[in-house]
């Protein structure tokens, strides 16, 4: 099985878990966003171009699979994947601290870009209650699940690289 297919299966299984199992433990409809965590980890491991591509793929998957605002997540994930990838050259791949804590900043940035897009689309909302209901629970979930997702992505990436070199 080629590496791309393995990555596709990994993304699909992770997304199925995100949408079908983790809503069981959702708080006000918020549950962890594995696609964003995966994009962050992948971008830290593979650099800006591949990070942007993974961001585009995971974002588009979210948009198409659930019927939310088309293109929105693809746009934010692409940008954030690219930006995380830019930082990747300055970080050791074995370093887990930065990708895990960067996922918090990425989640917050994702939230603010989406909020800005919603305002541009004409939706008005109370920013204080919105932060309280959406961002804070989301940050808590992301912090809890950033390490396991990064660990999985790191091991998957390591396996793929050894296969590529052999």
């Amino acid at each position, binding site marked *: 099985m080629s590496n791309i297919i393995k990555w596709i299966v990994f993304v699909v299984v992770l997304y199925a878990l995100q949408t079908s199992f*983790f809503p069981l433990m*959702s708080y*006000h409809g918020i549950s962890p966003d594995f696609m964003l965590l995966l994009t962050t980890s992948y971008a830290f491991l593979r650099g800006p171009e591949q990070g*942007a591509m993974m961001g585009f793929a995971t974002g588009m998957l979210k948009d198409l699979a659930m019927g939310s605002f088309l293109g929105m997540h693809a*746009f934010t994930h692409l940008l954030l994947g690219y930006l995380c990838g830019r930082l990747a050259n300055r970080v050791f791949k074995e370093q887990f601290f930065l990708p895990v804590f960067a996922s918090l900043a990425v989640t917050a940035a994702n939230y603010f870009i989406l909020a800005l897009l919603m305002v541009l689309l004409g939706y008005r909302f109370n920013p204080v209650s*919105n932060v309280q209901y959406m961002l804070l629970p989301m940050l808590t979930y992301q912090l809890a699940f950033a390490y396991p997702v990064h660990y999985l992505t790191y091991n998957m990436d390591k396996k793929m690289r050894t296969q590529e070199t052999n």
Partner: protein
Amino acid sequence: MSNRVRKDKDAGSKAWIMVFVTISLFCIIFFAARGRFQAPVSSQAVSLVLSPFQQAVSWVSNEFRFVTSNIWEIATLHEQNKMLRSEVEQLRAINVQANEAMSENERLRAMVGYKQSAHQFDTVAARVIGRESDTWSSMIVIDRGTGSGIQNDMPVVTPAGLVGRVVEAGLNSSKVQLILDPRSSVGTIVQRAESRVTGIVRGDVSNPTMPQMVNIPKNADVVEGDVIVTSGFGGIFPKGIVVGLVSSLQNDAGGLLKIGVLETAVDFQKLEDVMVITASREAPPEPIQPPPQTPGTETDPKAQAEGQKK
């Protein structure tokens, strides 16, 4: 030197591709939100690939939920029993009143010859197999599609009340837009007989669990605790499905209208099984009975006697 130039050229072209993709996505977002751009084929292809995975994971999570909820119920059995006993007492009293009101209603309907307004629904039961994790939009995926007779714009309900409508019916799964989604709008009416104020229920981005009833005139008779049901205007949702009850009232920013914040009848946190209304029609009218006549003044004593036998 030449390597450096090539590297710079590569970096430049990649940056241009990045800018092009970003701008294209930005345009897609706005065109799609205005309904001028859709990707039904790719969306259905993604759903087709994803739904077996979602069904498998959802089956596991349902089993997990079943086990944990059983353990919890056994642990709280005594307390639940006490609560249910007191509820039964209250409901018995309400039932007597309701029976009285129903018989009065039937008599009054017969007096004014009012048309029977009850509806019958053909429904298809479906299981929720997927749900979004963020709440800028509120969508779920159900395990029934066009193969089970599901089509776009069909209303989705539970015995408790309204859930939403089908926005994209795939082959073996469908996407349902919940009433919590900011893009959703439902024509509604206050159920209370003295009020009957109409309004539109929309999802609220600020508080994704509580939709808002908007367009209520400031002096309208709407109070906290009022039950809100669908009005049947708009043609998608049949009349009389419970949407929720008014939890609080706020003034609109313009000052002329007020907004009712609703507590939904359906618990969206625990949404497992739903029903899709595939057809709704008025219930067939009661067979016509000859009116009762005063003894001794019957116009047709034979027919009267037959009617009484029936």
